[in-house]
């Protein structure tokens, strides 16, 4: 059975009841893995509490950090400080400099473009080429599409159509997430796949953007964050005391 992933829930961290409701709703809608945007200074016991909430709803929690850097320097500093503490790192690209730096940095998992204005979205061929080499993915938050209307939705759909075509051509994985701040903005994976039809994503491609692609990213990052990871392709399978012949 296909495992669906919603990598971007944005509930208020202070309101645990709301968080629990959203996680439960996510489970009802057919997701198995849920990523929650967390503040950078979150404590370990708070993460354990969230993991317990997710476990109770039979969900797998992915810890995620969203950066909204103003400068290239700020992005690099943040990546150095926080990369090893979170399973998924997303960068909201608000300028071309940030977008380019984020796309070429292998520590960035998701490139996000919060603007509905074509001038505020920087996912072009050059960006996609960098992202493809660095294994970063393009994230599409459906809440932005659901909450916009009129001319801003027309512009957003037109941008998404172009970006999806570029991503497909240059083999950049696309990740579809909810980006929901409350449960009325949450939809099931098949509903999102039908919305993706509006920007020319075929249902099989959209379903892959909701399951295999984000799941592969999470598994790759979990492998890298494990204490047994050495470098790409090398990991410790046994330590000194575990080796019977030594």
């Amino acid at each position, binding site marked *: 059975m296909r495992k669906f992933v919603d990598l971007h829930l944005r509930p208020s961290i202070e309101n645990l009841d709301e968080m629990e409701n959203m996680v439960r709703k996510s489970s009802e*809608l057919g997701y198995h893995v849920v990523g929650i945007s967390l503040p950078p200074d979150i404590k370990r016991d708070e993460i354990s509490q969230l993991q317990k909430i997710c476990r109770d709803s039979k969900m797998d929690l992915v810890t995620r950090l969203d950066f909204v850097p103003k400068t290239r320097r700020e992005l690099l500093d943040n990546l150095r400080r926080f990369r090893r503490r979170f399973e998924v790192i997303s960068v909201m690209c608000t300028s071309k400099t940030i977008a380019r730096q984020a796309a070429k940095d292998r520590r960035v998992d998701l490139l996000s473009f919060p603007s509905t204005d074509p001038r505020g979205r920087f996912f072009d061929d050059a960006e996609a080429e960098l992202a493809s080499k660095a294994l970063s993915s393009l994230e599409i938050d459906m809440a932005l*599409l*659901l*909450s916009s*209307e009129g001319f801003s939705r027309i512009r957003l759909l037109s941008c998404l159509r172009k970006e999806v075509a570029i991503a497909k051509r240059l083999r950049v994985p696309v990740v579809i997430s909810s980006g929901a701040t*409350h*449960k*009325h*903005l*949450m*939809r*099931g994976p*098949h*509903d*999102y796949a*039908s*919305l993706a*039809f*509006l920007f020319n994503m075929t*249902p099989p491609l959209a379903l892959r953007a909701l399951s295999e692609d984000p799941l592969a990213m999470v598994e790759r990052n979990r492998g890298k964050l494990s204490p047994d990871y050495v470098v790409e392709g090398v990991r410790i399978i046994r330590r000194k005391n575990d080796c019977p012949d030594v």
Partner: protein
Amino acid sequence: MRKRYLALRVASEQPVSERDLTSAFWNTLLQLFGEYGASQVGFGLIDYNPQKGQAIVRCSHKALEMVRASITSITEINEKPAAIHVTGVSGTLRALRKKALS
């Protein structure tokens, strides 16, 4: 014309009447696809239970994606936050009732 039947679950903080549901659907369909698109979907509300928030709608099988996209785009009914989830799709009413509403 071949048809598709969709089972829906309406999630809203206030009770939603049949009239409100239909007009929310048509408004979204018109916003997304315009009058030309709306004329092709063959939409009809077959059954609606406001207490349970369950509904069954019909559309042309060629317009299924358009109808699903419109239903998913509904975020407000009567200016109150709402969501409509598609719980099942089938080619016959009997199969749909068996599959989605059981």
